[in-house]
């Protein structure tokens, strides 16, 4: 039974792993921490998978658990990072495909988003994923109006950071 559940979970996770990578891209700054947070998210997802009833899509359930992990459960400890090694050659190859100007603009944007606090990063993630304000509000446990107001403030905040850095 556990084997079947494990197989089902791993297959779903393999298909939707970009959700985890994208959240890691916002919440971490280096490759090792990215891997560490990815691993912790995977463990958290697996631990609560038996309670996943399928009321929502796996992707919706997964990004909520992963955001909660990044905001509330993840304890960053560089000294103790022991992660499963994975092949990064594909990652490096794809990065090299960017043209330098394009890459620089993205780098400045990611760096600006990383300066936001954990809650603001969650709002940015859901905005980038085209989630509506109702879903953003439900995920964070705030009102829809306040989610909207905060998102507008984040846009202004980012614009200011970008202007200060002379980017875009």
């Amino acid at each position, binding site marked *: 039974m556990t084997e079947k559940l*494990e197989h089902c*979970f*791993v297959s779903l*996770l*393999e298909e939707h792993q*970009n959700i985890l*990578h*994208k959240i890691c*891209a916002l919440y971490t700054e280096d490759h090792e921490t990215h891997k560490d947070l*990815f*691993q*912790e998210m*995977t*463990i*958290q997802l*697996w*631990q*609560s998978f038996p*309670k996943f009833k399928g009321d929502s899509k796996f992707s919706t359930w997964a990004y*909520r*658990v992963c*955001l*909660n*992990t990044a*905001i*509330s*459960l*993840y*304890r960053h*400890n560089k000294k103790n990072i*022991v992660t*499963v090694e*994975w092949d990064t050659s*594909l*990652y490096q190859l*794809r*990065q090299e*495909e960017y043209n330098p100007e394009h890459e620089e603009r*993205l780098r400045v*944007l*990611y760096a*600006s988003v990383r300066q936001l606090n*954990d*809650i603001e990063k969650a709002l*940015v993630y859901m*905005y*980038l*994923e085209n989630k509506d304000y109702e879903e953003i509000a*439900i*995920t*964070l*446990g*705030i*009102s829809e109006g*306040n989610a909207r107001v905060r998102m507008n403030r*984040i*846009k202004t905040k*980012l*614009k200011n950071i970008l202007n200060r850095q002379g980017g*875009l």
Partner: protein
Amino acid sequence: MDGLDLLKQHWNRNDSFPKLNKMELQQMIHRRSSSIIKWIFVISILELSVGVGLAFLLPIEEKQTSSFEQYTSLLLGIIFRATIFFFIYIFFKHYRKIRNNTNTRTLLETILKTRQAVDHYIKFNIYFVIAYTVWSGLQHIVKVFNHKSIGEGILVTLLVIIVSIPIILITTYLMKHYYRILYRRLIHKLHDNYEELIRMEG
């Protein structure tokens, strides 16, 4: 076009992340979690054990000279043990409610409540030990005044004050320092994120 909209354009076609295969993912799910919850649980259980240890170490009934002292001692023993078990019940009640798939605010609230139960429990233990020390000191002073000379009574009173005040001050200082370090390392991030959500709603 603002920065976010520009990022959005690239976000959804970003496929530059590494693709982990099933075997790599399977290895990961069997790794040990290093989540804050795990640490809160371990530290809390250790702290709760101290109180339980004290509950067994402190005598529930001693040979007292008067029935008033006997009843007071019995009552204090019962209150101490009952309160300890009440805090343990509250801790587990909140701990069982922690779900990583609830909304972020509820999750943060539940974690902080769980930890708060242990903080209150520790404070109760400290106050109780202080009260118990003061009570025992007073009992001793009264006995000396009743059975010995006034001079000896004053001497014992001074000794009790000189010994107990530094002990109380040092214990309080050490506990405060311990919690400041623990708080900074363990739940500072959670508290900040919770405050941020509350500010958004305010």
